[in-house]
């Protein structure tokens, strides 16, 4: 099964993520997201976590890295689909407090 796919709508690029996000899979996800980001140059990147069954701090690294990428491209970043299984970690990391990131269910 694919672990991510993209949707494009105007200036918004959405990446839907699936399965477990750990250090082993994060690298491949990062490469594909960055490639697409650089080529589409959206105004808003949405990372949808509703299909994510597990993530550890590598997932937080993935978000922070994309946040830096977005800043360089002048894009905003929105995190959606935060479920019970990923909420605790997102809260612990304080990711909502970063200025160009917004987090919602």
């Amino acid at each position, binding site marked *: 099964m694919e672990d991510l796919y993209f949707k494009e709508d105007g200036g918004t690029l959405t990446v839907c993520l699936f399965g477990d996000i750990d*250090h082993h899979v994060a690298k491949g996800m990062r490469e594909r997201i960055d490639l697409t980001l650089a080529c589409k140059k959206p105004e808003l990147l949405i990372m949808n976590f509703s299909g994510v069954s597990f993530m550890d701090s590598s997932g937080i690294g993935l978000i*922070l*890295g994309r946040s830096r990428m977005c800043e360089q491209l002048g894009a905003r970043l929105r995190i959606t689909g935060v479920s019970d*299984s990923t909420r605790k970690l997102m809260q*612990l990391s304080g990711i909502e407090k970063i200025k160009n990131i917004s987090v919602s269910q």
Partner: protein
Amino acid sequence: MRKIINEMKVRIPARSTNEAVMRGVVSAFCAELNPTVEELGDLRCAVSEAVTNSIIHGYRDLPEGKIGYIYISLRLYDTREISVEISDNGCGIEDIEKAKRPMFTTGCGERCGMGFLVMESFTDSLTVKSKPNRGTTVLMRKILKP
């Protein structure tokens, strides 16, 4: 006195595919205690952090083609306690207090320095022992709700 009701030792190569393998092993091991979804999620996350650290930090200086091993010791007690000890024979940690600080990382790529914070927050106790050039041992205990 608490009694051990089950125990298990695993020796596994420090390959990143084994992060998921060890999460699965730990889930199966504590299934008989019927942990809640949240308790199991916390434990899986803490184990994932420790195993990942051994792979990417512990064995970072290994020459190409050489592979290190991770040793995991699991115990289940009749007090609904699970203990997980994860060791490597890697480079070790110079200053453990510093390494534990949130955001501190020596990792390249996209490490965020949150592994120890996760291990500490998602379990009931965390003990880290380490010797430079000898290796690192992380011991975590989690007590499940009755």
